[in-house]
């Protein structure tokens, strides 16, 4: 999505080219189209477009992709609620979306 950009150089996303078998799953599932296949290897072509949704890592059959593994999503309300839950010693299940 080129018309909406978020903070640069913050997303946790790593691609291990040595492990990559070029199946192309990541290019299929990424909702921001940040992967491309070059030859038989995937390449990150728009790192700052990554929102850490984790679709690529989940669908990589050889675990060549690493995405921020923290629970939760890019949602301030969710993060605040999970802090409050943690302070009150309650389970973190604080979002109904």
């Amino acid at each position, binding site marked *: *999505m080129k*018309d*909406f*950009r*978020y*903070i*640069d150089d*913050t*997303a*946790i996303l790593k691609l291990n080219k040595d492990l990559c078998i070029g199946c192309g*799953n990541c290019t*299929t*599932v*990424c*909702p*921001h*189209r940040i992967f491309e296949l070059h030859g038989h290897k995937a390449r990150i072509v728009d790192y700052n*477009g*990554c*929102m*850490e*949704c*984790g*679709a*690529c890592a*989940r*669908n990589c*059959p050889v675990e060549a992709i690493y995405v*921020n593994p*923290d*629970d*939760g*999503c*890019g*949602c*301030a*309300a*969710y*993060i*605040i609620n999970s802090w409050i839950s943690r302070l009150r010693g309650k389970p973190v299940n604080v*979002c*109904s*979306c």
Partner: protein
Amino acid sequence: MPRASTHLSLRDHLGTLRARIGIARNQYKLNPGLYCVGAPTAESPVFVTANYKLSFDALRQELSGINAWILIVDTRGINVWCAAGKGTFSTDEVALQVNRAHLAEIVSHRELILPQLAAPGVASHELNRKCGFKGRFGPIRAADIQDFLASGNNADDKMRSVTFTLAERLILVPVEIALIWKLFAIITVIIFLVSGIGPELYSVSAALSRGMIAGGATVLAILAGALVTPILLPWIPGRQFWLKGMLTGICAGLAYVSAGKAMSIYDALSLLIWTVAAASYMAMNFTGATPYTSLSGVKKEMKLGLALQCTGMCVALILWIASPFIG
């Protein structure tokens, strides 16, 4: 076999409206399992979706004229993308529902069409091993399904990219506002209570008149942060949402205090800071509604954003209480 209509009834539309304005937000669950549209046969495609009313409606509406199966998986009434992110729309859950519905005895092919946004939770390459069905990711938007089928179950780049159009942003505004009404009610009561404090100890008339002014600023701040900011999102400078909200808050706050005559400089300053801080907070909360903000990014912007918002609100409150004594 439950049959789903591809047309939404008046009742369906009313339900959509209620869901969109956040009434009884957790009560839009459907029963998981296999449904059909049209008159599907053993060769008909199987679409998988979440057991959330809006997800199911979006899908079935686009299947008019198509004979198909719909497999609803149990995501606890949460939409496809959020459920996938949280792991309830998972490979195991899809496999479980496939087996529970005895899908292998109903259809002759071995392919499921999954919404692309289920990919954070569903590993297509693991599905086959777990239930004998292969997963194929369909388009992101159900509206593209007819084109997807017409092109031999292929989705182009456009179908695979998320968008965030004005309509897509606007439809999320009511629920964002509905979610904070409790907090808003508490704050309004506090505002009215502290507005009466003055040199003559406590004045009920001041509580009402100053309370109205501060309450008005709060409503304005919510609109600036939760309505104006989403509408103008691509055009407001900056990337971080608390900053975008600050900018709209400054505009709204300046307009409000300049329109209010006979206001002391301390009152005006307090209201301005309050509006900016509250609008910034509301805008920051809109990160959860967008399809492009990362967890790392939101955590990063919240560190400074939340600190400044809290400080601003405290300063505004102190100024507001002190104003009748010094103004």
